[in-house]
């Protein structure tokens, strides 16, 4: 390797190292300040005021879905520690069901209910045929779905 090539190697390595460090630092700073979503526990702990806009994430509590006529629906989101009531009017995604992780975009109402203008269903990384999943649940002996809590 010629001295010229050595100098280029050093310079280019420094540039890449610099860009990498800058990105890592930026990401580190971002992860502290910006929360992509709040769990019901985080909503309580952070003391979010009515009117605040944020994303609420959690699992749809079993037997909490109430259809209120038309496209109106109320349900409860839980992180298995705390719960939060949600109201939504609109079309729900196909994956929306009890025990499913969801992310609701919206704002906190005066009465403490989270009024969502968009409800997204989060999919877990499991891909299984129906028969296999049924067999696995029978083997486990309970009917509870293995939804992950946030």
């Amino acid at each position, binding site marked *: 390797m010629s001295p010229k*090539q050595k100098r280029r190697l050093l310079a*280019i390595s420094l*540039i890449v190292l610099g860009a990498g460090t800058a990105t890592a630092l930026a990401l580190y700073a971002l992860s502290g300040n910006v929360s992509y979503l709040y769990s019901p526990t985080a909503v309580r702990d952070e003391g979010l005021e009515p009117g605040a806009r944020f994303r609420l994430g959690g699992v749809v509590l079993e037997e909490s879905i109430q259809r209120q006529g038309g496209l109106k629906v109320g349900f409860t989101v839980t992180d298995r520690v705390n719960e939060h009531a949600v109201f939504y009017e609109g079309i729900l995604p196909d*994956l929306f069901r009890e025990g499913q992780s969801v992310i609701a975009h919206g704002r906190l109402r005066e009465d403490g209910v989270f009024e969502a203008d968009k409800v997204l269903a*989060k999919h877990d990384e499991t891909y*299984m045929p129906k028969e296999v*999943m049924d067999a696995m649940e029978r083997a486990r002996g309970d009917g509870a779905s293995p939804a992950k809590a946030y």
Partner: protein
Amino acid sequence: MKLPLWFHRLGSPPTFYAFAARLQPWCYGLAAALAVYGLYAGLVLAPPDYQQGDSFRIIYVHVPAAWMSMAVFVFMAVAAFVALVWRMKLAETLVLTAAPTGAAFTLITLVTGSIWGRPMWGTWWDWDPRLTSELVLFFLYLGVIALAQAFEDRRAGRRAACLLALVGVVNVPVVHFAVTWWNSLHQGPTVRMFGESSIHPSMLWPLLAMAVASKLYFAGSLFARTRVALLEQEAGSAWVRRELEARGHV
């Protein structure tokens, strides 16, 4: 650090041209054979998913394309590093001939993901970290392509493009780990290199076939593009004239 001799030999345009011409049909052929199996097994043989029904079949184009969108950029970064340090012209050419296919895979990832997200998540798009960093990746590809043509001096433009490919590679780990670092909309990795994958074998095999097919396709496409680029760069030399006069040889 000295590069081995075969590396220098392969770096000579006529040698690489002949080497690529020999391998290109095999890459395309094997890719097509694997894709036929993967598509048949994925669209017909694999059972519907217990939650997503048949919409999960989009995975067979979305996930291989997503893997390639990252792999091609890493390939470009390695080639750019060789090009910048050793001033190897062929490596410089490879950075630029890989970029369009990488951009194509990234576009496929974004569009098919959006089409899957509409019925499953309930939205076409969300500023989720994974989706956003993949979009940034797409712009980085476009940036590399644009930068190479933005300079009056052709060499300077290509060098700037190499530099962007090298620096932009820091975005690849962000794309990959976005689902682990942040708790967000996009699901975590289904297929894991280490540990158990959370996908049934009947659904996994077609996915792996499509993944290998996409890699072979990239190799074939890279060879095809690089050969044309070499003909253009070396225009006027004897071997190029011979090559262009031979009829029906593509």
